[in-house]
């Protein structure tokens, strides 16, 4: 951690929630320090002037790569294939955890 940009365990708890990562207290403590080290190191970029620079998100130079909106049967899964790696299935469907509470 640096003085300029300290991360707190509260920050780490918030990021862990956003990232859907379950952390125990020891892990959260360790990550507070380690992510802090990385973040303060990458902050070095702030010293570079980039006022009139546009961002680069990809380097191919290609735009709007399109294809016909047609079904490609060679890459279709059967229902059995689509479910082949699922741990919990029921009648040909994925079983997921309940997200809605009963009243």
């Amino acid at each position, binding site marked *: 951690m640096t003085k300029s940009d300290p991360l707190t365990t509260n920050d780490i708890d918030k*990021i862990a929630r956003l990232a859907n990562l379950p952390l125990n207290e020891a892990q959260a403590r360790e990550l507070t320090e380690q992510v802090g080290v990385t973040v303060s190191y*990458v902050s*070095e970029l702030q010293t570079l002037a980039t006022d009139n620079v546009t961002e680069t998100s*990809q380097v191919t130079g290609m735009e709007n790569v399109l294809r016909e909106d047609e079904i490609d049967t060679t890459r279709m899964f059967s229902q059995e294939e689509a479910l082949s790696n699922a741990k919990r299935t029921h009648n040909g469907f994925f079983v997921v955890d309940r997200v809605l509470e009963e009243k």
Partner: protein
Amino acid sequence: MLIDLPISELSEKLRSKTVTSVDIISECYDQIEAHESKLNSFITLVDRETAIAKAKAIDETIATHASPLAGIPYVMKDAYLTRGVRTTAASKILDSFIPPYSATVHRKLEEAGAILIGKMNMDAWGHGASTENTDYGPTKNPWDQERSAGGSGGGPAAAIAARFCSFGIGEDTGGSIRNPAAWNNISAMKVTYGRVSRYGAIAYASSLDTMGPTAKTAQDCAYVLETIAGVDPYDATSSPKPVPPYTKEIGASSKGKKIALPSEFFGDALDPEIKAAIMEAREVFESAGAEVTEVSLPLLEYGVPVYYILAPSETSSNLSRYDGVRYGGKRSLFTKENKRRIMTGTYALSSGYYDAYYKKAQKVRSLFISEYTKLLSQYDAILSPVTPIMPSKFGELLDDPMKNMMADLYTVTVNIVGLPSLSLPCGFGKTNLPIGMQLVGNMFSESTLFALGHTYQQKTDWHTRQPTLVSSK
């Protein structure tokens, strides 16, 4: 050993029936049985009977196969989907995952008649430079088993150095093909972004990921790249540019070629043994008629910060799909290093910090592109070390985010810009550990790099040296 021969020669022998694919495959499995327990390079070994059956089928039909890779054994980093063969990305999350489809690269190699013998160890999800951040135990360096085989693709590199196979397929996001190549004394091509389809490769950071060959020589890599490169309708970022005949163009002379040597790569961070080896390589290129000039690439030190914003950001997004519902295990199974990168990336993308980190890094990425474009408009290639340090001892890079990041100092900038880079063996340190160099070229200049590499390998014999483990029985 047969497996010491170049692909071109093996292929000729297969066609003239002086050697069979069964002979080659059997030799590889014997070698694996003798030495794999010392290295731990495989996550999944294809069973011997399956591979031999494929080899027999190739031997019977060899005259009908156009590809020089027919009957040749290869391995893949475990980041590629291989239909019916377990694929883990070295993470317990995918411990029992059997892909229902294949990566384009795998499909092309199967169609060529090459024979897959294993899925190889790596840092889980590509996160690391030492194949220690894996759920399957670290891969040991064939040159010194107390040291790391590099990463993230330590498994395929160690397997080639140990003569378990002819070639391997790696994946390079920040150095994952080149760093293990350097530490195992093998050759490898990190291709131009888009040169090879990413379809079916498990994504680390999508705007940086590239798929490429690793083998004993530049020429062998050229044979493999010729087979796997090209546009793919299933990957919209794959380039429609025609694939040059790399193996025909590899004989091009290096006379008059201009090579840049940026002074920033030779600072205090660099191990003096590596520096000395690169300076010797410089003389080899000069003796071949190339012109080597010292130049400056002032942005270099900002490469690691840009990479460690962009790559974690993209990986936090890519890995968010692993929710354990449709396939795979729970998110608590991510390794410590995975969690560090997911957390760093999520932070960099989070509201209030996005402009300061992610957007800023994307802008600096543009600065890198201009700086490299300018330099490469005057030079055919840039010569530099691959890693600042010799192969690390186990534990040295773990749990120290700074050390871990600095191992990538010389490799990550190439991914940020999208350029190709050929990694080649260029010497040994006092304790008989291998040293690698890289030649970086313009977008889609793989052919030029292969030719320079081939020239170098005609004039040197570093690439023919084998770890003592290979010759001992």
